[in-house]
């Protein structure tokens, strides 16, 4: 870790007019990591990636790749390659020439070029495709050619700009897993940007959640999911229910709040402790909500709600319920343990307060 990492950035700033698209971002990506930057569109993630690739210069801050300062190095001299959102395969060249383009620039002799092209095509699962035209390939195959074109150069860092966005759902799921395996096989450090939290969660070792040009939280996917540091992360990563109420008491790390209909619920406080009487949000995940009163333990918080709909979606089946005007979703396990519920029926939704998170709105 530190300045010798594959990628180390300190206090990067990029302003457009008075608006800072990238606002004092620091990051440290050790070798061999799959690092994702996750954020909604317009959060500055593409600008950040272009700074790393060298298409744009930071106004402040430094970019170090394996200890070498990269700020003034043009994109063609950086040990960094990029897979573009729309892939940008050269349409006038064959698959082999596309992959050979970078090798030619490195003055690799023709015979070695051929063997390396053949080898990388085999590694991405497209053996013998050298003479095909990119236009003749399917979306998934083009994706792999774009990857091979970069990986054949053995870059220190591979940048990926939402390359799965253009694929259909089924293929996207498949490519997610394949990309992760390829990253492990090549051992290259990946920096992947996406707005799709499932992509980031499935593939990454580390995820940075970005909002308004800043990193809200940098953590492994599981920690992001279980221990969100900010209300934005809690709402953005994974499904979450949000209940708004007034903070009435804090006991150790548990906060008690009174919802608008007067019911009292509890949850674990996030990092900051807001003053008593403040409006706060409680986040509770659909799978943490327990249905019915049988298994209810005394320390659980509970709410009365009425069923609005049951949404069957296989393993993702959910119950939509309404509690004092706030919509809640609870997961319906499909192993037969969930009770059959009609629309309008009353249910009790309960949860372990340790699994709920309480934040003051807008807390960073």
């Amino acid at each position, binding site marked *: 870790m530190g300045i010798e990492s594959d990628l180390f950035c300190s206090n990067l700033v990029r302003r457009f007019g008075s608006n800072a698209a990238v606002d004092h971002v620091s990051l440290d990506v050790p070798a061999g990591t799959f690092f994702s930057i996750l954020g909604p569109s317009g959060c500055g993630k593409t600008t950040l990636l272009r700074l790393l*690739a*060298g*298409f744009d210069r930071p106004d402040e801050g430094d970019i170090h790749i394996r200890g070498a300062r990269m700020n003034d190095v*043009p*994109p*063609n*001299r950086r040990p*960094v*390659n*990029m897979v*573009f*959102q*729309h892939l*940008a395969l*050269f*349409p*006038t*060249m064959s698959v082999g020439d596309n992959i050979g*383009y*970078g090798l030619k*620039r*490195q003055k690799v002799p023709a015979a070695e070029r051929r063997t390396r092209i053949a080898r990388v095509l085999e590694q991405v699962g497209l053996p013998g495709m050298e003479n095909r035209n990119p236009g003749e390939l399917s979306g998934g195959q083009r994706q792999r050619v774009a990857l091979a*074109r*970069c990986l054949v*150069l053995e870059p220190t860092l591979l940048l990926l700009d939402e390359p799965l966005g253009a694929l259909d759902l089924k293929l996207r799921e498949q490519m997610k897993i394949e990309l992760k395996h390829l990253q492990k096989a090549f051992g290259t450090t990946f920096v992947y940007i996406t707005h799709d939290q499932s992509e980031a969660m499935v593939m990454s070792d580390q995820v940075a959640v970005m909002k308004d040009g800043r990193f809200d939280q940098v953590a492994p996917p599981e920690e992001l999911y279980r221990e969100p540091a900010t209300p934005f992360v809690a709402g953005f990563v994974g499904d979450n229910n949000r209940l708004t109420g007034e903070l009435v008491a804090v006991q150790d790390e548990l906060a008690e709040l009174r919802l608008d209909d007067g019911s009292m619920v509890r949850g674990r406080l996030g990092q900051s402790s807001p003053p008593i009487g403040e409006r706060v949000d409680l986040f509770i995940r659909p799978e943490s909500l327990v249905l019915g009163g049988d298994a209810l333990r005394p320390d659980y918080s509970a709410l009365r709600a009425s069923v609005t709909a049951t949404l069957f979606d296989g393993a993702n089946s959910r119950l939509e319920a309404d509690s004092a005007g706030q919509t809640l979703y609870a997961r319906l396990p499909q192993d037969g343990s969930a009770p059959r519920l009609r629309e309008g029926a009353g249910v009790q939704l309960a949860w372990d307060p340790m699994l709920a998170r309480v934040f003051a709105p807008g807390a960073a």
Partner: protein
Amino acid sequence: MNASAGRLSLWLLLTPFLLWIVLLVLVPHLQMLRVSFQVRESWDTLAWGLEQYQNFFTESYYWRTFVRTGVMSLFTTFLTLLIAFPIAWYIARLARGRAKGLLFLACLVPFWASELVRTYGWMILLRESGLFSSWLQALGWADGPVEMLYNDVAVIIGLVYNGLLFMVVPLVTTLDGMDENLVEAGYDLGGSHLTVLREVVVPWAMPGIVSGCIVVFMLTLGSYLTPILMGGKDSAWFTGQIFTQFITRFNWEQGAALGVLLLVLSSLIVWLGLKLSGQSLRKVMG
């Protein structure tokens, strides 16, 4: 009923096109081809023969002019491409919104005046008593009036100027459609400016380059006013030869033969250009 109505409307639509092709293209060319093989034996008798074509090859002045016109047209086309490419690049890739429209308009404006007026504009600048000459004298860089007209450079300047728009338009169209990421990918994978231009941009723009070159080459080869006015008596442009035969010497047979040869030359060079650049006419003309 319906089928015959359909056929009627098809013919009605085709008629202007067919009339145009037949009356203005096919008939004159066939007539010219026929006349070029006629040999005038006496004032009222004609025979078939190759005399006009023999004249062309035996009179060195004819074929020297012919070769000179071809080579200078090729050079003019190449020069036009070199000048038009950065202009087209700027209009297509760098200019935004209003500036783009204005720049395009600026390329178009000279073509609102006739070729004669445009050429006369250059003559005002370049002639002995012209603007450039007087500026040079005022600056003390020349002792007396400088004649810049009536040489090959002046002819090429005029021809490049006339062809520029026809090169810029197809180039802007092709460059406009190029994904910005292609250029970035070219750099990202280690290419220098020159490599990206050679390996990525030029291959992409090839259809535009070839179609622009064909149009400019044909225009230049067949232009008459500019070489005569800016090159003077000694411009030795092949169209001038044809004019002389038809109008001055009233030798229609010789003029027709020269015309046929010019047509063959331009077709041959365009065909060669397409072969060499690996493009087909269908792809280039879209």
